[in-house]
């Protein structure tokens, strides 16, 4: 019988909501969701969801992956978090680049408006 604590359920639900959001964005073909982003989101959020519900499988998973010790699994998770942070930074840079282009465009088009 699988026993789940309220914290496990909470984390699993949070992860599921984030993954569902990514899935909907992908199927709606929203511009902010490319295949790569959806894939990365699925790996991260589904991973968190599964490990929240089946924490004992983490050790088994790390053994299967060849990590052996659970400490290495934490290091692996650390890498995932760093990856997510990089992902966020890329998004921020993209937004900034887009804003710069919009400002440059507005300025260029003002010549037509002024005519």
């Amino acid at each position, binding site marked *: 019988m699988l026993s789940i604590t309220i914290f496990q359920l909470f984390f699993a639900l949070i992860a599921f909501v984030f993954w569902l959001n990514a899935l909907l964005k992908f199927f709606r*073909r929203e*511009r*902010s*969701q*490319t*295949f*790569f*982003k959806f894939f990365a989101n699925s790996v991260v959020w589904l991973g968190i969801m599964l490990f929240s519900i089946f924490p004992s499988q983490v050790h088994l998973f790390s053994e299967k992956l060849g990590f052996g010790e659970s400490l290495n699994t934490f290091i692996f998770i650390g890498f995932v978090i760093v990856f997510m942070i990089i992902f966020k930074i*890329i*998004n921020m840079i*993209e937004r900034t*680049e*887009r804003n*710069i*282009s919009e400002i*440059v*465009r507005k*300025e*260029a*088009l003002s*010549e*037509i*408006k002024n005519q």
Partner: protein
Amino acid sequence: MSTNTSKIYIVIPAFNEDSVICDVIKEIRASKYNNIIIIDDGSFDQTYENAKKENGVIALKHFLNRGKGAAAKTGIEAAKMLDADVVITIDGDGQHNPDDIARMLKLIDDGFDVVLGSRLKNPKGMPIWKIAANHFGNFCTWAIYGLWVTDSQSGFRAYSKKAISLIDTKTDRYEYDSEVIREIYRNKLKFTETPIEVRYTQYSMSKVHKMNLQNGFKTLIKMMISS
């Protein structure tokens, strides 16, 4: 041709093309298209000044270099403001032949929303490595954006009024050309491809900012991660 020629706009994104831009404008005019919008994408040379000297040309300038895609989008926005019925985008280095425009317009008149000029439908004179790179680009565009075309990186395209009102691109550089393909797919626009002549001159091949292997990989990565 039923489209009112006074509402056909030719959009030319240009970056450091001062030595050829006047010839490109004259060649387009010789083909009887007079609504020409030049977008100087932050050139260091006299591209903007030379374009402005040509009578009747609408010359706009990006005060910063933002990329071919950003410049094309500015041109299309300008054409929308001028109530264009059809917009043709054409490269600023003179590699495209304006004589092909008439065939594109005919297809727009036939009811297509977008006409893509395809170099691979007429690869005469095209270097082998460019043909191979194009096939790879087409495959990546299909894998990422879901629509197969024979030349996903061509800048010579025609858009109907419906297409320019629906297509909404976000990317700025060479990935723009592929993003348009995604927009065609996303908005279910009716499109076709037509063979175009491309003149590979020493000038056009020597430009350092043109698509090369390094830029190709950068474009691919951006296509994968950018929104």
